[in-house]
Every structure is written in C-alpha cells, then in structure tokens.
C-alpha cells in the first residue's frame, strides 16, 4: 500500500512508542497534522507557543526518562522552538523535534516562512537532519531517536520539506536497528581505570562524592546510593543531580557551588579526593578554577569524553555510562578496607553546625524559604517539582529535600526563564498519578503564561507556587551586592492580577498575603486533584539567596545570611584531618 511521507513519519513515531507530540501547526506541516489526526496512538498537544512545546516535551522527558517529541512548522515555528531546544541541549535531555520545511524546490529562495532550520539549530542540538528523499524518512527517524537517547542524550532536529510529506511510496518496514559507523558511544569503562580508581578511593582520607545530572539522566540513582553507602563518603550534588541521592540522608551535604551549603563547599575545598560522577565542573560549581579543590585528586566519570579535562584536569578519567561504571566499581570495592575517615566527618559536622541555610523570619512578611518548606511539608516531599530560573529556583533546590531522581525538573545549564510551567505540563502528562508543582515567580511565569490555556485543554492539573516579590530577584540581589543598590531594570511595576489571570484561563487562583494563610492555601490547592491552581504568594522583596560565592570566588569564600563579612579562610588545619 502506498503511503505519503507524513503517514510514514507518523508510523515511524508510533513504532518508537511515542505517546505525546507537543506542537503547533503551520503550512509546512499540514500533511503531518493530517496524518496525526487519522490515528489514535499518539496524542497531539497543541501548545500556544512553540517554545512551550519544546519545554513541555523536555519536562515529559525528564519526568519519564523517555524522549520528548515536538512538531513545529517552518520559519517562526522552528525559531520559536530554539530556546527550548537549547535548554534541552544544555541539560542533555533526549528530544526529537520534527520541523516542517518549505517545499524542496523553494529551499534557498527566501520563500514564505523559510529559515535554514538545520543551520540555526546546529550549535544547540546533538545532531540534526534535513530529509531530502522520502525513502529516507523512516531511517532518519530511527537514527534521530537512537542518537537522542543513547550516549550523552540530547535533542535531535529532523527538518522535512513539505513536498516530502506529500509524495507517496510503498514503504519498507520500519528498521529495527540502526548501524552508524561514525556514532558508537562508549558504554563500558576500561578495567584498568576502574582498578586505578578503586586504589585512589581506598587510599583517600578526605574524600567527597560530587554527583551531577548524569546520575539522573543516566538512571544511576541505585548504583550511586550503593556506592555512597558502601564507602560512607560524604556526597554533594549539583543543581541538576538533586534527588539521585536522597537530600535528607545523613551522608548528603546538600548542593554545592555558588549557592551550595557551607559544608559542601568547605568539604570540596578541603578534600583530598573528588569523585565526580556525571558532572561537568560547570563554572557555577567551581567558581575560580585556580582555587578549586586545591588539595584534591580528581576521578571523573562521564559518558562524554569531551567533558573530561575540559575545565578541570582529571587524574583518573573514566568514560562510560555512569550506572555501568558504578556497578563495576561497586563490585571492585566490595569488602575492601577503606581508610578511617571519622576525623574528616567530624570536621564536616563542625562545618554543618554553621547551619548555613538558617534564615530569620520577620513578622508580617512571608519568607520565600518558608514557602518551599511548607510545600515540602504539604506534599510530604513526594511531588514532582519544576521551577523557572532565579532566586526561587535556588530556594527550591536548597529547601525541598528531593529524595528520588526525576522529581526535580529545572533549567540548570541554559537558565531559561519560562521553562517551569510548560515543563510541569509535560511532567504531569508523563506522570498523571503524581502531584506536580511549578515553583515560579512573577518574573519567570510571565514568559509563558499562555500555556495556562493548553493546560486547561489537556487537563494537566498543576499547582503553581508563585513567589511574587515584584522584583527580578536574582538580578536585584546582584545589584544590591555588586552595583551599590542601583536596581536597574529589575523592578516590575504593573503586574497582572494573577488570580484573575488564572481564573480567566479557567483555573483556580488563591492569593496568600499572610504566613498564616500559606499552609491552608497549599492544602486547598493540592486537594483540587482535577484543577490547576495558581497560588500567588506575596513574599519578602528584600530576601537574598545565601550562601553565596561571588562569581570567580573560591569555595571557602562564602557570603552567609546575616553576616556582613565574607566567611573565609577557615582555620582548620586539613593535614591534621
């Protein structure tokens, strides 16, 4: 039977087990929309802006572990999606984006709604394809999913000219396997490196595990837990890694880096052995590279060889899939004798006593930290939490103790404001049985409020926790610290009435202006199982995120809450530890 290119494409997506396509139609993809309408396996989610489609697919992928799928038209369709694609790329999220292209004969003629989609997306995708032959559609889709989901995952764009969706052929069956001579990611680590790693671990006296997003994306949570508990080493997690190891476990020191805990950063500074697992030594983690972990040897486990020795030279590099590497390493270390690190732990516990996440409440003002703590209490720590970008994102990371992977969904690499709401919608579709909260702020949410409409159409009940302080808080904080309180472009006047806004989109809104109303409001919101509830909370506009390492500082140079002076140069003699 003859099928057109659009039908072949949809059949291919069905073969890949796709459940949802997040997208927006347009001239170049009308045949694809038509083919989508003619079947029932894949649900199309019509967003209100293509950036929202990419973020929603991203949220779906992060929550489920399956690739997110996006469909956009040519020209503005794909350019609008670029921010979402770049967001997924920076955080290594598997995603396949199908973009329509103008008909082949018009390519290069500056046709209506034409852009060079593969050119524009080249630097923010894992790979992209322009399909030039209808016979290549199925094979290209197979390759796209293979590339997006294996090795270090990432987004893949498949650009299909309209005429290729209209042409008809008798298709071959969908390829079961794909063989690419130029793409063979390393999965298994070399035995020699494992042995060397074990030796260094067994000899270290002040070790620390520094785990990142690779442990979440690479499904290595179980292996990481086993490794940490077997070694008894302290563990600190990056913003992207939170949840792979339980945040409220005794061995967990919390997040590290610019807004990490005092004990995490001090332990990194003092460590003699840093075991980096699925983390990439981002500048927000390392601060000044010159002063980064001055006494440590580095073990670096990553699936992507280009991450190793990029920012920090690894003493022992291990390329491989994190869960497999850890599994082998755990076997290697089993029943071995470790160094006594009790002195190291007592030092860490002293640092812990600084209680760097403590904050003072002020009467009559709702502290943003209290909001996150209340959310944690009301959801019993079991919700999937998405966030936007800024102060609220840091508070969410610091105060919501994630104890499972894929519960914390945020744009860590690109730092995309507007990510939270559509990502929450995608996460809810992936995990309909779970409570989903979107922690956001009046600044970020306004970049994507139109998706409230999509959320009503597809019944994705999400609880929006809006930390409304009237300021672009992170910008305001930097201006307070580094620009002598000149709050240029950081105050938002004329905000909408978020309650009415939510109501006009058919959702429920709750305004919270007093701390006493906070918990009841959240309880009420989560009681509404079938509805999206917008909880607009007026929070302290002057609050700052602490601890803070100013950009380019060292891990021992931290600003802590309630202190004018930088805490620095800890007196501890590490050699005695």
């Amino acid at each position: 039977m003859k099928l057109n290119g659009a039908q072949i494409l949809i059949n291919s997506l069905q073969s890949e087990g796709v459940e949802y396509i997040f997208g927006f139609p347009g001239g170049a993809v009308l045949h694809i929309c038509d083919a989508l309408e003619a079947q029932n396996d894949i649900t199309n989610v019509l967003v209100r802006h293509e950036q929202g489609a990419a973020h929603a697919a991203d949220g779906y992928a992060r929550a489920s572990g399956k690739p997110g799928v996006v469909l956009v038209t040519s020209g503005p369709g794909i350019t609008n999606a670029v921010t979402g694609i770049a967001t997924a790329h920076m955080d290594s999220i598997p995603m396949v984006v199908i973009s329509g292209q103008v008909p082949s004969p018009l390519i290069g003629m500056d046709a209506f709604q034409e852009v060079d989609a593969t050119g524009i997306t080249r630097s923010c995708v894992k790979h992209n394809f322009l399909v030039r032959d209808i016979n290549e559609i199925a094979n290209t889709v197979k390759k796209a999913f293979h590339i997006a989901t294996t090795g270090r995952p990432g987004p893949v764009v498949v650009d299909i000219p309209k005429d290729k969706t209209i042409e008809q052929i008798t298709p071959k069956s969908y390829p079961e396997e794909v063989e690419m001579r130029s793409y063979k990611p390393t999965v298994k680590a070399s035995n020699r490196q494992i042995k060397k790693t074990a030796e260094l671990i067994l000899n270290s006296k002040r070790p620390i595990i520094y785990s990142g997003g690779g442990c979440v994306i690479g499904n290595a949570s179980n292996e990481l837990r086993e490794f940490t508990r077997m070694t008894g080493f302290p563990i600190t997690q990056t913003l992207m890694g939170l949840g792979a190891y339980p945040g409220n476990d005794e061995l967990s020191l919390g997040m590290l880096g610019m807004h990490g805990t005092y004990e995490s950063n001090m332990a990194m500074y003092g460590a003699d052995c840093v075991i980096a697992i699925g983390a990439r030594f981002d500048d927000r983690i390392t601060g000044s590279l010159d002063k980064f972990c001055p006494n440590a040897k580095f073990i670096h486990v990553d699936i992507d060889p280009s991450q190793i020795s990029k920012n920090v030279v690894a003493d022992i590099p291990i390329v491989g899939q994190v869960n497999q590497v850890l599994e082998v390493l755990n076997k290697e270390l089993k029943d071995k004798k470790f160094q006594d690190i009790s002195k190291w732990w007592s030092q860490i516990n002293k640092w812990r006593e600084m209680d760097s996440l403590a904050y003072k409440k002020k009467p009559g003002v709702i502290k943003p930290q209290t909001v996150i703590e209340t959310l944690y209490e009301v959801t019993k720590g079991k919700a999937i939490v998405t966030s936007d970008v800024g102060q609220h994102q840091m508070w969410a990371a610091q105060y919501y103790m994630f104890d499972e992977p894929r519960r914390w969904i945020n744009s860590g690499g690109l730092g995309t404001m507007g990510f939270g709401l559509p990502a929450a919608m995608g996460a809810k579709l992936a995990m309909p049985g779970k409570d989903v909260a979107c922690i956001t702020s009046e600044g970020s949410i306004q970049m994507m409020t139109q998706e409230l409409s999509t959320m009503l159409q597809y019944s994705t009940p999400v609880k929006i926790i809006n930390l409304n302080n009237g300021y672009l808080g992170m910008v305001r904080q930097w201006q307070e610290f580094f620009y002598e309180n000149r709050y240029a472009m950081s105050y938002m006047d004329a905000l909408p009435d978020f309650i009415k806004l939510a109501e006009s989109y058919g959702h429920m809104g709750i305004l919270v202006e007093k701390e006493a109303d906070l918990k009841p409001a959240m309880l009420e919101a989560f009681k509404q199982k079938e509805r999206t509830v917008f909880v607009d909370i007026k929070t302290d506009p002057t609050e700052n995120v602490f601890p803070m390492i100013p950009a380019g500082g060292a891990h021992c140079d931290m600003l802590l809450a309630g202190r004018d002076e930088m805490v620095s140069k800890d007196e501890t003699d590490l050699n005695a530890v």
Partner: protein
Amino acid sequence: MRHIISVLLENETGALSRVSGLFSQRGFNIESLTVAETSDSSLSRMTIFSTGNDRVIEQIVKQLNKLIEVVKVSDLTSQDHVERELMLVKVCPTNKDELEIKQLVDIFSCKIVDVTEKTYTIEISGKTKKINAFLNALNSAIIMEVSRTGVTGISRGKKAILK
C-alpha cells in the same frame, strides 16, 4: 603549538559547516582547512591546521569526535607524517623581473603553469615554510593574487587513519 588534525567524516551536506561551526562556537583557532572526497566516495577527509596548547588541542580532538558524522580524528603532529600545501601565485613582472622569476622558479623547484601576455601563474607545493619563503622571495610589487590550499597531510609507514 601548531597542529595538523586529520578528520575522516561522512561525505554529507552540512558536515563541513558542523566542523567549521564547532571551531567558531568554541573559540578554537583555525589557520587553514582543506576538504575533499576520499577513495571511498562516502567519506570525506579534512585536514585542519590549528594552533593551541595541549589542552586546547585535546578539546578540539574530543569535540570533533563528538560530531555525529565524524568517523575518525587523528592528530598528525603527534606522529611521523608528510605534509604539503599548494599555492598558485599570479605575477605581472616587468621585463627586468622576468629573469629573476625564472631563477626563483628553478631554485624552489616550482612550475610556471600559465603564461599570458603580461602575467605568469606559478604553481608551488611543499611545506608551508617553503611556500612562505617563496612568497617572501618574490618582489611583492608584482604579485597580483595568491591562492593557497592550506595544509594537507598523511601519516608515514604502515599506519593509516582507519587502521
């Protein structure tokens, strides 16, 4: 340090721009780049002449390897190799320059490949140093234009990029 990096990649449209885009995106130096099909028409071979310290070159090699269409990357500088560059230079000599040009062509073992009423086109190949030396030896006032291929190279002996 100067490095010559050979890249074997799928002969597909867009592959070249992925490589050149990588260099601009990550701020790597690129002094010259040559590319053409190999004996296997499904593969192209690219030679990139770049400069940087060891860590930069290590990143260049890793980032090139990460490109999906790249089959193999090899840093020729780290092994025994042969390298060549070809240059075409067009000159318009006055009568008194003519003899000097013919002498230079002899000394540098190059060829005059085209002659018109007022111009000569000279072809020279060899190591970059030799080509630079030839260019320096020419009277710059008579040089009309220069076209260089950039460096290409191949390893010596039994070793081959895919073996």
